[in-house]
């Protein structure tokens, strides 16, 4: 499998307070990484650094040549401007905007591609509705659709389960599993349980990063990250995230 993104020795902080220190991470083709850690541990910050929203204090992030513009981003539910009046279709279309085409009008293929994705995500009927009139699950799918129309090689999701119900969570998990055949997936979450059956690696972040293969994470490693004993349950044996402890 080819390496898509190589992160080396990244440090970053807000004002003078460091949030991330000497973080290394590799993202490979078809990878499925869960990024977990306590609140304020730097999970979202790491995502924003990879996506170029923030500039690191130190360190390098290298992308395989063809993918630096093919990063799909599903931000936290609450980050976009809910004041902005826009329909689902137009919101998803903005995913086709890039630095190379923002001065040009949308092309026919932009709209066609958007409609294909909307159909795939069961949003086609809602295409002319204002995003503020959608349910949490529907809005979540709009945000995913917006990320998918840019044909991403890596899909980053920030707390995708925070605002949706259990059924939507199961659908989301199955959908990501399906997508994982074509693209790498990185999920930032405080609650890894919904993804317990499908993830391939886990990265624990609390200023530093601890990277684990599937199944090797134990309570000791988590204590190191969270700074106190924690308990995580994976529902249904054998799909536990943690070894029995």
């Amino acid at each position, binding site marked *: 499998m080819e390496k898509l993104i190589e992160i080396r020795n990244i440090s970053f902080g807000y004002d003078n307070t460091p949030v991330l220190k000497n973080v290394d991470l590799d993202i490979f083709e078809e990878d499925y990484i869960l990024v977990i850690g306590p609140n304020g541990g730097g999970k979202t910050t790491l995502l924003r650094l990879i996506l170029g929203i923030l500039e690191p204090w130190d360190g390098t992030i290298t992308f395989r040549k063809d993918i630096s513009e093919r990063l799909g981003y599903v931000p936290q539910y609450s980050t*976009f*401007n809910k*004041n*902005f*009046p826009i329909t689902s279709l137009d919101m998803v279309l*903005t995913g086709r*905007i890039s*630095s190379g085409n923002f001065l040009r009008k949308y092309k026919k293929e932009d709209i066609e591609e958007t409609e294909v994705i909307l159909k795939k995500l069961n949003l086609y009927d809602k295409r002319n509705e204002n995003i503020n009139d959608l349910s949490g699950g529907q809005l979540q799918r709009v945000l995913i659709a917006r990320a998918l129309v840019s044909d991403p090689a890596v899909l980053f999701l920030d707390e995708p389960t925070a605002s949706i119900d259990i059924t939507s969570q199961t659908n989301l998990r199955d959908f990501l599993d399906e997508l994982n055949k074509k693209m790498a997936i990185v999920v930032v979450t405080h609650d890894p349980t919904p993804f317990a059956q499908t993830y391939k690696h886990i990265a624990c972040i609390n200023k530093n990063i601890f990277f684990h293969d599937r199944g090797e994470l134990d309570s000791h490693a988590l204590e190191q990250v969270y700074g106190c004993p924690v308990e995580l349950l994976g529902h249904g044996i054998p799909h536990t995230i943690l070894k029995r402890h």
Partner: protein
Amino acid sequence: MLNILSYEFMQNAILAGIMASIVCGLIGPFIVSKKMVFISGGLSHTAFGGLGIAYWLGINPLYGATVFVLLAAALLGFLKEDRTDKNDLFIGVLWATGVAIGIVFIHITPGYAPDLMTFLFGNILTVPRSDIFVSFILVMIVTLSVLIFFKGFVAIALDEEYAKARKLPVRALNIGLLLLTALSIVTLIQVVGIILVIALLTIPVAIASELSANFKQIMVISILLGILICLAGLFVSYFIEFPSGASIVLVGGALLGIVKGSKKLLEIRN
């Protein structure tokens, strides 16, 4: 009734109203959705500084206002903090400093300054043809820029983080939007005056937002509403001799009240 249209001052007033409405409809929806109303108020008031200096130099006050508002917008754009609370403070300082500069220069200019009331409160009935021409150029710049940068402006207004992740020139687009806001404000100052500018940037958009949830439609409806409000205010002002800027704003406010009220009534009945 129709013969009043043959007066040149009336023709100028109508043209000024239409041009003001166009920039309001194009820029207002961005200002409202990006919560830049206070910024617009601040920029508008810095114009007073430019007016004062131009008045002291003996040149067209409109040129002074244009330069000052553009400078203030550029300064705000370059210093813009990510933390909005710091922005808030900075806008307040710009606002007051602009007005203070204006007051000082008017004070040291010999003689009485009758035009200045016009700039504070607007008088659409006294806009000279030469200023109409300046406005026309400003409106052309604003219209072309919004058409060219529309996708980019939508991207930063809807989701600035996402626009950054898509590698759009977010900072440049934000500065561009501020500069266009500045040019729009100059056009509006002639019609409703410095103090009432934010009314025209917000009231048509507020009414349009009640009627549509689609951004492009809101822009078009805002332009049409702006024209309706400006012309209605203009005639009220002409026939009952009310100050024109205030008449326009009050007509707009009343219309907003009527639209909101009828929507509420309809909701209750259904």
